[in-house]
């Protein structure tokens, strides 16, 4: 029923203009990140602070958050595949790519969260692992690699975790549709 035709207008985050432009993050941690790292852009998404970081600074951002900003826990690392998305948030200053690697960090002493997103192109799906800083990112990065085929360089044990080791493909990619998995009928030729 849903119309799959791409929309004309691109969606803008409705709260971004109210903040008076992206130059003035109203979040202390985000302001530090934007000031310190090239290409970092702050957006407030449904009240939550989000920083779009360049992929090359991914590991440094995590190190900065852990060592200087008291972000004690990496809550989650995951990937989003934007292939064929009819409508997508566009953020000024960020070139959209097919994959987005998303990490949620939580600071217990400061009781705040921040989300860091990096754009990863289809041609070179690779990003630095943060498992050496946050050992808890080990499993989620393996999961992201398994289901999306994004390689995390420097990961201690980047093997498939949910799918069988001999599995071909990465099931959560949009072009890996479940219906395309061939059904084989073994040993029954008649």
């Amino acid at each position, binding site marked *: *029923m849903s119309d799959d035709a791409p929309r004309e207008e691109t969606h803008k985050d409705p709260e971004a203009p109210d903040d008076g432009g992206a130059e003035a993050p109203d979040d202390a941690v985000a302001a530090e990140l934007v000031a310190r790292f090239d290409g970092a852009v702050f957006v407030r998404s449904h009240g939550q602070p989000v920083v779009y970081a360049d992929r090359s600074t991914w590991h440094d951002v995590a190190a900065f958050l852990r060592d200087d900003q008291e972000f004690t826990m990496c809550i*989650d690392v995951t990937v*989003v595949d934007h292939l064929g*998305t009819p*409508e997508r948030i566009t953020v000024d200053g960020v070139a959209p790519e097919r994959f987005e690697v998303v990490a949620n960090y939580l600071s217990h002493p400061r009781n705040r969260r921040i989300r860091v997103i990096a754009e990863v192109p289809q041609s070179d799906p690779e990003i630095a692992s943060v498992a050496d800083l946050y050992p*808890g990112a080990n*499993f989620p990065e393996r999961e992201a690699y398994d289901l999306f085929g994004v390689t995390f360089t420097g990961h201690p044990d980047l093997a498939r975790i949910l*799918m069988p080791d001999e599995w071909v493909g990465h099931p959560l990619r949009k072009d890996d549709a479940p219906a395309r998995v061939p059904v084989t009928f073994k040993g029954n030729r008649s």
Partner: protein
Amino acid sequence: MSLEETRLERQTDEGAQELRPSELVLTGGQWPDGERDGDTMIINMGPQHPSTHGVLRIMMELDSETVVRAKPVIGYLHTGMEKTGEELSYVQGCTNVTRMDYASPLSNELVYATAVEQLLDLDVPERAQWIRMLLCELNRMSSHLLFQATNGMDLGAVSMMIYGWRDREETLRVLEKITGLRMNHNFIRVGGVAADLPDGWREDLLELCELVERGVQDYETLLSSNPIWLERTVGVGHITTEECLAQSITGPILRSTGFPWDLRKAQPYLAYDQVDFDVIYTENGDVFDRYRIRLYEILESIRIVRQCVEKMPGGDYRVQDLKVTPPPRARIDESMEALIHHFKLFTEGFRVPAGETYAAVESPRGEIGCYMVSNGTAKPARMHIRGPSFYNLQAMGPMIDGCMVADAVAIVSSIDPIMGEVDR
């Protein structure tokens, strides 16, 4: 015959005396070959092992009875629920996520519904929030009672298993009366809950609270000072706060290390800031502490349930937004608009503006989160559930290293993983 046997015995006795037993007694120490370093064995516990709570496989490297290393191997229950979530509309999604953590389905539904509501900028009526809170606490009780049962069973306290299942069943009976199903309720929907509370819910809940409270006292008497229980649990599977934070471990395991972190207090959602309860935490970080924390959290949940019974506000149990909430059944017969809304909602679903958000709540196992990306259609572009068990399993390595095989069972049990949520 009997004479012969008697003589044989006598001969053996004398022979044994002559053999000077001291020469035969083996004293401790190294085996003669001395190849101790490489002399370890790798065995698999699971995936079909009764104490692994489903299909968890643990590869253990053993040095005789000591576990040198342990590595959890998961994926045996992977059913692609996140992929399924992209195929289902937002209306249907709750049915999918509720099957992830099947011991606390309402937390899953809550976090899913919260994420969609954030994307829609939808405000949920107060009564719906209180009903959600009430159900989540009932669910916490049933989940922790399940833990008490299986934990007792794993450590050989079989009567505890019977008691735990019995009280859990009573809790599920009340949940069934409210939601219509024992498990996988699909009751917390986007915009509120599926139905109002049934008649007589107050009496049922108060009766249940009394029953479970009595039960918890019984378990305390049965286990907490039982020397065999203490022998099996105290000091076993130790973990520190630093290790927990580094490994992204949340929930009772984190609180057992002396770190009182509970999202219900730290980042209150629903109406948790309007009820009075304590965060239970202990200092030792061992199996016994994790057992006790879960035991006392049942009592805290009972406190919250009692306050819900007392303070439950009136009003709507779901938001009166025609795009999100289906019309009442009676309206469909008389109103064309209602029929259209009903039809559109259950064929296409409602559209959610493009955006992305992360919602987190405290499930019985820790922080359960939902990262949701919408693309303007009626189906999510990405629906990722951060299952706490998935992360908590990472604690297994540091906990098991150096302990005995029998303790490994106790440790896995105290992590309380739900494999449906780990593998999704």
